[in-house]
């Protein structure tokens, strides 16, 4: 019943080659996606043929897409997305129709049969969720305005893919009525799962996550468990509905996204992003490598000229269709340009649609090869366009100005600058908050305890729930642009990492427990290192001396003062006035 304790070589080879090609890509300034796809092409039957898709790699690449969408869901706060919902629907539907027509047209022109052309048209309508979202996340643009538009459009495309896959998987439909039924069932399912996610985010989730948020491991794994609940239901929706005589499919990506969306509405979502991110990176890598692992060279290259021609036609078509539609919805030039240039590739779903059509006997293996090549080629090219989208915009801005209409759409997010950041809310740092609030427009407090966050928000401070060690949290607090930073961490490595990241003009206060740590921190640029145990030791020694020398008045006064301070529920605002009254004076 039990297998040998050996790990498959395939996954190890994938990991190693992806790492090596990744290193080379990094050195030469290429995006990592390209490295992964390239590693897949080299390892696959097209070149070396050393690796086959195993059950494990298939699982990891499925999880990669699911986690990518889960991560994306976690980032989507409904109140931030709501205002772009309507334009997104108005953009995506005509876009798909237009690109479908273009795709089918070019296929006919290239000599494919009309059924093949029809299916190719269906397969090229979508842009790549994996590429666009990965690139947006890497560039930290997923929640920018153009990011939101792209993500929204991708999700609507996702729903359409699910519907088309459901229809194709059912084999050749008998009549239009059957198509309509499938369509209705999928739409109802998507609606149901959305309602379930939204309801949960309003009722159960806040209670559950508030309880576990202070336990890092449990918090992370329960969130993963939540994601898998949706993945499992989506994956097996057919089994659940079979007794009712309904046949329907949902993509696990859709489920994962909804699971993430439900969590995103909670205050703890930021912390979770950083925990899910590394897993996602690892799994998505497997996904991109395995894209090209399946195909023989002969099948892949049978229609290579056609694929290149189609790619060269489709990419500009997609760009202009998007450009026209986004502009039509009244977004500004930059959003319009960036939102369009990001979406010019053919999706991995195109390959999946083609693969299902191949299995259903609608098309030949060579057409599947054509679709795969088209997808890989356009993905590869588009990655560069996304990478350099801002530079391209600046280059072409004058031309774009002439083509676009007036910007009517308002949106976007204000970032922190020249603000104060306080890491950890405790008995020490709380004394500084009112002073900082007087001086700075924004005071951001990072803390990992739920009750602290609630107290801080009630006081009107900007509070971020999360561990300062996580890069998203640091980015969110805009630590690089802060003018004043106060850290209550006594861990030297955290403080040193902090000192490395802040700007030269920032004033930095940190805490330390040991003298050599404090020295180290001063050497690294700290302006003041607070050492609570040492202060306490000095003070206690003073008191002891007064006590032993019989200075009763002094000791009583001082002790009463300290006790009074202790009793004060709120240590500000007068506490600092007393500071002159130490024993020594």
């Amino acid at each position, binding site marked *: 019943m039990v*297998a040998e304790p050996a790990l498959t070589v395939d996954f190890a080879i994938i990991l190693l080659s992806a790492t090596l090609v990744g290193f080379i890509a990094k050195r030469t300034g290429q995006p990592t996606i390209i490295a992964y796809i390239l590693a897949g092409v080299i390892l696959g039957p097209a070149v070396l043929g050393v690796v086959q898709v195993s059950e494990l790699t298939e699982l990891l690449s499925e999880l990669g897409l699911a986690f990518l969408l889960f991560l994306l869901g976690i980032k989507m706060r409904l109140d931030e997305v709501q205002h772009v919902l309507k334009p997104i629907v108005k953009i995506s539907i005509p876009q798909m129709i237009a690109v479908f027509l273009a795709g089918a047209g070019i296929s006919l022109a290239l000599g494919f049969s009309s059924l093949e052309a029809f299916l190719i048209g269906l397969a090229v309508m979508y842009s790549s969720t994996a590429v666009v979202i990965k690139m947006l996340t890497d560039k930290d643009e997923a929640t920018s305005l153009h990011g939101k538009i792209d993500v929204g459009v991708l999700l609507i495309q996702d729903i359409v893919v699910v519907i088309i896959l459901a229809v194709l998987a059912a084999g050749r439909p008998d009549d239009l009525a059957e198509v309509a039924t499938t369509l209705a069932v999928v739409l109802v399912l998507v609606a149901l799962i959305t309602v379930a996610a939204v309801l949960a985010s309003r009722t159960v989730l806040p209670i559950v996550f508030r309880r576990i948020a202070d*336990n890092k491991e*449990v918090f992370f794994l329960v969130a993963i468990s939540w994601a898998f609940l949706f993945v499992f239901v989506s994956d097996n929706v057919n089994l659940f509905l079979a007794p009712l005589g309904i046949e329907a499919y949902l993509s696990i990506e859709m489920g994962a996204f909804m699971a993430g969306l439900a969590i995103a509405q909670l205050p703890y979502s930021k912390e979770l992003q950083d925990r899910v991110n590394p897993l996602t990176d690892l799994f998505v890598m497997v996904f991109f490598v395995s894209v090209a692992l399946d195909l023989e060279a002969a099948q892949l290259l049978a229609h290579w000229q056609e694929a290149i021609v189609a790619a060269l036609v489709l990419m500009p078509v997609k760009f202009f269709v998007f450009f026209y539609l986004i502009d039509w919805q009244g977004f500004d030039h930059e959003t319009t340009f960036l939102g369009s240039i990001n979406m010019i590739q053919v999706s991995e779903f195109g390959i999946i649609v083609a693969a299902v059509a191949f299995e259903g006997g609608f098309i030949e293996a060579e057409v599947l090869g054509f679709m795969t090549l088209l997808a890989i080629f356009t993905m590869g090219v588009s990655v560069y366009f996304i990478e350099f989208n801002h530079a391209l915009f600046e280059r072409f801005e004058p031309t774009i100005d002439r083509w676009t209409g007036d910007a009517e759409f308002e949106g976007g997010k204000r970032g922190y600058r020249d603000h104060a950041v306080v890491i950890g809310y405790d008995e020490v740092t709380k004394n500084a908050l009112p002073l900082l609030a007087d001086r700075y427009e924004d005071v951001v407090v990072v803390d990992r305890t739920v009750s602290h966050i609630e107290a801080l928000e009630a006081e009107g401070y900007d509070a971020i729930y999360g561990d300062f060690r996580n890069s998203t949290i640091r980015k969110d607090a805009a630590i690089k642009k802060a003018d004043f930073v106060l850290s209550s961490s006594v861990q030297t490595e955290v403080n040193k990492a902090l000192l490395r990241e802040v700007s030269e003009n920032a004033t930095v206060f940190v805490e330390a427990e040991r003298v050599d740590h404090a020295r180290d921190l001063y050497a690294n640029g700290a302006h003041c290192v607070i050492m609570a145990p040492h202060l*306490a030791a000095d003070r206690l*020694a003073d008191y002891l001396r007064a006590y032993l020398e019989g200075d009763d008045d002094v000791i009583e006064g001082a002790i009463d003062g300290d006790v009074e301070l202790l009793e004060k529920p709120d240590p500000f605002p007068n506490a600092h006035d007393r500071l002159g009254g130490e024993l020594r004076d």
Partner: protein
Amino acid sequence: MNSVTDLLSAVAIIFLVTGPFLLAANRLELPTVPFFVLAGIVAGRFIEPALLLELAYYGIALLVFTFGAQINLSGIRTVIADGELAGLGQILIVGSLGVGFSVALGVPPTEAIYLGIAVALSSTIVGTALLQRTINADPVRGRLVRSIQFVQDLIAILAILLLGAGTLEAGYVGPALAAGAALLLAAVFVNRYLFDLIGRLAGGSDELMILGVVALLTVFVGAAEFAGISIVVGAFAAGLAVRYDPVNYLGLFNGLQSIRDFFVAIFFVTIGALVVFPFVGAEWGESVEILLLVAGLVVLTAIVKPAVTTAILIARGYEARSATLASLNTDQVSEFALIIAIQALTLEALSPAIFDAIILAAAITMVTSSLTHQYGERIYRTLADRGVITGRHDRIDEWSDVPDDIVDHVVIVGYGRQGRSLVETCEAIDHPYVVIENDPNRRDIVTSECDAVVIGDAMERYTWEKANVGDAKLVVSTVNSLPVSRRILSLDTDAEITLRAADRATALELLDEGALYVGHPDLLAGQQLAQQIRELFDGDLTREELRENQRAELERRADHVPLHLR
């Protein structure tokens, strides 16, 4: 049973089932590991565990890997040098008892070894999770437990290496040891010379850095497989190859944690899924046998092991209380024992029934362990009051040095920063004092620097007798522990008492209960912080001036701090 064959569904089910169990663990404030195993026992009814074995092996690899990665190579020598080797004696005694017991029950000797290992080793994951709640309050115990566990973990790795073939054949052991040593050498080499290269190649990208390190892990695991030894040894070596440098590689260590948590959960759940629960899936006769074995393992682990450890620690001069409480932290089966068991099961060196017994005993003792941790103080008190554990006063007498006629003195509890500066004050104005300190590691310093000392536990009556607290003028506690503070307040003395508290609520409570003064370091630090920020904002000081003042102040203070605290 309708097992799921699809891997994705299997993984989904694992996490689906685990979620509620984790919520329960969190609610009950119990360690997570036994709950993973329980979740596995439930999930095992829906999934085929063989399907998950490969993922579970990644869990094992990552578990051992992160253990290795947290070891600081340059610091390892000092850890072993002043580490507590009491662990070794305990392993030998309890391990032999475990083997003897199993053989007596009719388990073949080759399999009895595994049972011996299971009872002898304790869990670092569970122990550390429990300790985190008390670590600040009780540094002596924390250090003791950590060093015992560290020694045990190293022994576990060695055991895994030696048992890699399922038997202790001479033809296997020699080459295996050589291969293990070669891997460790390679790891040291990578750590010294190649690791920063990976860092440079990744060019600051966390994604590539994590990928590179996971690839490094697979290379070492692959090398171990190639050499025919356990992948666990490879994973451990890979961990050592990673430079423990959380400053430069902050993102790496955070990222690895997520990946590890994910796969380790799968590992523990798979372990649970492999268990055939007695009476449910197995026959009556066999079930009774397994239960007997489980009961024996639990008794050995949860009662005999801490008893033996306590005895050894007391013999080595530790205070009865610290020794007992530290030993109570080791009263569970180690996760390494689970790894060894699953490895033996796959090599068919261990029968499924005995495997089940080990896993069940592990799950049970991990839960009981958190209970004994919670009630440790009470357990110790009960045992001490009945005379089961006797502190050895002769040690206190031998080490302590208090003039018989001392009166009107100050009793200073704890010789840390505060204790040291209090002693200096007393000496400066020539007032008699007695220091109470219970950390054997500080004994030499305390006895050489102070006139009058008691090396003993502040929770013990004899310690206070020795310090002649009845005639003291003042007791100053610098120890940040509520039980100690309460104990001092309950002393039969006219001396006034000042204490230390970790938070404001406790401080106020202790004042109510009769303390003259309660120090709360954060309060002072908060004041100082506010003052300095104010001076800065008002323009009284520039940043550079502040910095120079602070540095000078630090150096002034540094001269007053005892060496072991710098």
